């Protein structure tokens, strides 16, 4: 683990800056010249019609894709090519559009796996499951239990996640991301496929995470009601280009956004 070599940021400072990012696969351009920033401790929504490049944007932010052009600055450091695990170690966690849990593990182990980057007892202690290895296991278990309490999933602690209903899987995934104690939390459609009650729960959790831990959150969501209620600022993508950026109210009134969502009369 590297020492924190980044400046300590106050609320409202720019945490992550995306500058002129383009991304192409062969002939297909997923993103074209997109710039926006995410400020410390805000909830930032990325919206846009299907295929607008929202998930590609998240993938660029956490190093899963490299932008063909442009740059991404995180905590004041411009990153050239960053591997996903480096992004994770730098403090970026995320959840996935299609749940990507470790299916054969229990809820508890999934969240414990999220603590992997925080654990450092070496291989030989691990071999004997003793001393620092066991102490660490217990210490992190306590943290994990706090997260479990926070997200109200005590009852499924030891259930293999493959057997859980979709809504709970999404919640476990959030728990796993929180276990990484991220600076920046990326949520890719956290409420897709949920019923109203589950959406309300999830919204509550997102707000609580943001307020209690001061975690900066970037989320992709299709439910406009949720987006407008939750987010501080919204960026709108269409066909890989940014068409609007601002507070929910500003974006709602933007003509191009209305056209993109409702279609234009020709």
């Amino acid at each position: 683990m590297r020492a924190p070599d980044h400046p300590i940021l106050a609320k409202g400072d720019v945490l992550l800056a995306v500058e002129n990012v383009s991304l192409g696969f062969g002939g297909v351009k997923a993103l074209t010249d997109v710039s926006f920033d995410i400020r410390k401790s805000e909830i930032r929504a990325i919206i846009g019609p299907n295929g607008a490049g929202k998930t590609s944007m998240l993938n660029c932010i956490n190093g899963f894709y490299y932008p063909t052009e442009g740059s991404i600055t995180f905590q004041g450091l411009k990153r050239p090519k960053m591997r996903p695990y480096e992004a994770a170690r730098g403090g970026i966690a995320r959840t996935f559009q299609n749940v990507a849990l470790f299916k054969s593990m229990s809820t508890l182990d999934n969240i414990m796996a999220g603590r992997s980057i925080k654990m450092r007892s070496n291989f030989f202690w691990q071999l004997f499951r003793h001393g620092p290895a066991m102490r660490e296991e217990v210490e992190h278990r306590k943290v994990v239990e706090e997260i479990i309490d926070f997200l109200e999933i005590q009852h499924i602690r030891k259930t293999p996640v493959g057997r859980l209903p979709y809504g709970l899987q999404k919640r476990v995934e959030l728990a796993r991301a929180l276990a990484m104690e991220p600076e920046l939390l990326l949520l890719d459609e956290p409420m897709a496929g949920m019923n109203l009650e589950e959406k309300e729960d999830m919204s509550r959790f997102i707000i609580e995470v943001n307020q209690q831990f001061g975690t900066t959150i970037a989320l992709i969501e299709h439910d406009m009601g949720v987006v407008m209620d939750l987010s501080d600022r919204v960026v709108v993508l269409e066909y890989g280009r940014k068409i609007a950026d601002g507070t929910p109210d500003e974006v709602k009134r933007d003509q191009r956004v209305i056209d993109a969502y409702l279609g234009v009369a020709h």
Partner: protein
Amino acid sequence: MDILYKIFIEPFVFMGEAPDLLIQTLWEGLVSGILYALIALGFVLIFKASGVFNFAQGIMVVFSALILVGLYEQGVPALLALLLTGGAMLILALTVERVVLRPLVNQPDIILFMATFGLTYFLIGFGELIFGGSPKEMITSELYLPQGTTEVEMLGGFVRFQHLDIAATVIASIMIGLLAVFFSKTRIGRALRAVADSHKAALSVGISLNQIWVIVWFAAGIVALVAGIMWGARAGVSFSLQIIALKALPVLILGGFTSIPGAIIGGLIIGIGEKLGEFYWGPLVGGGIETWLAYVIALLFLLYRPQGLFGEKIIERI
């Protein structure tokens, strides 16, 4: 320095000094390359149509050759035996579809792959139980395959061409051509490609998976039979052929699992590379490098291009 000279200079000097030997080596590489390609085609056929990487293709080569020779030994006329072996491959295809594939629809690829290990071992045991473990002679002349050699004087020496090898090259090329047409031009060919993309999606548009699978496994069985006759005629029919058949795997890695031209070019690269390597560089390390050279070539190649020669760049999504 001496070792560098021996690796990088001497073999090429030798090639230049004795071009007839080089031609001879290239020819042998070409023939085995074509035959590797033929075996690889059996894999490609099944992989394209069912997404199953059929490890048992190698044993099917041996198995079909054994049935053919075994029937002949029982007094069945050669051509009738050939026909009956074809029938046996159909029965095998039907059985595999019913017993192995149908219960495993929509399972992860790797599970189906491992199931074909099981099939391989079953067929090895079954084949040895019936035909015994000792090597057999292929009924070359009875199948009207040419024998003998032609020596051609060229480049200051003689290059020997086995008639059988020439025939093998021609027959294998015809088979490959037919399969390519079958895949790209026929209705069944299109259905096959649909099934390979997604079992579920193919089912939903009314393609019968079971039929398709029987067809491709049967076709792969016939390809295996042809490969078995050719290899058997060159090296005898025994279970050690299976090790040769495994060489089709590096061929596939080079050429990609779904590409017919890939299988051919991969086969030629492996066949020729292996013969050149063995003949010119093998003596440096005591020979016998043919057993692993193909795999190492494929491995090094994979590190450079994980998607194979003709595969598209893999874009991972999450």
